[in-house]
């Protein structure tokens, strides 16, 4: 029997979409990679237009070249999917790192 997609489930999936208030530069990319490193059982995938990146790779996230106003889709798979997706969305939607 396939597992259901509830919170705490290893196959749980959570999706968020963020309209970037700032370019996805080095500092938020670093914060996302750190988040991914802190939640190793979860996979954080980002999609911006035709570009995709696993948040674990700071270089891949920076290479997406996502600018202000880009719609970024966040898909988290893993046991803490909803909480990790919220944290990733918060990093992406934060105004603070605008110059990083």
């Amino acid at each position, binding site marked *: 029997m396939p597992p259901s997609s509830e919170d705490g489930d290893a196959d749980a999936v959570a999706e968020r979409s963020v309209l970037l208030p700032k370019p996805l530069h080095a500092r938020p990319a670093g914060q996302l990679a*750190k988040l991914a490193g802190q939640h190793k059982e979860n996979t954080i995938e980002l999609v911006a237009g035709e570009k995709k990146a696993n948040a674990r790779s700071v270089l891949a996230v920076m290479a997406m070249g996502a600018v202000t106003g880009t719609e970024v889709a966040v898909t988290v798979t893993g046991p803490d999917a909803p909480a990790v997706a919220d944290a990733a969305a918060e990093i992406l939607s934060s105004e603070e790192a605008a110059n990083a």
Partner: protein
Amino acid sequence: MTEGLGLVGIVLVSHSAALAEGAAELAQQIAGGATVVPAGGVEGGGLGTSTDRIEAAIGDADAGSGVLLIPDLGSAVLSARAVLADLAGEATARLVDAPFVEGAVAAAVAAGGGADLDAVAQAAEEARDAAKF
């Protein structure tokens, strides 16, 4: 994970003090919380690599979980190897073949997230395959 304590340290070995310092500053900014120590140039301010500076940088970067060395070019590798041979047994330090800037950033982010030396070295090596855009 113990924040700021016991993290893997990173040493950037460059022929240029300015290059090592700039790359360390950038990697540290992005990673936030990682220890990245520059070991660039030689006494007197010229270009070259100094085994004394590398050895001191390893000491500064070592928080008990090991140190990853990233060299820029050619003889930076030789100088780093000479230091590692001298330190054999005294410090857990490893030299990695990785792009200088991208490797430093990827390694610093991994180290800042509490990754062990193997994982930090792997992050640096994987930087070779990361397209810039």
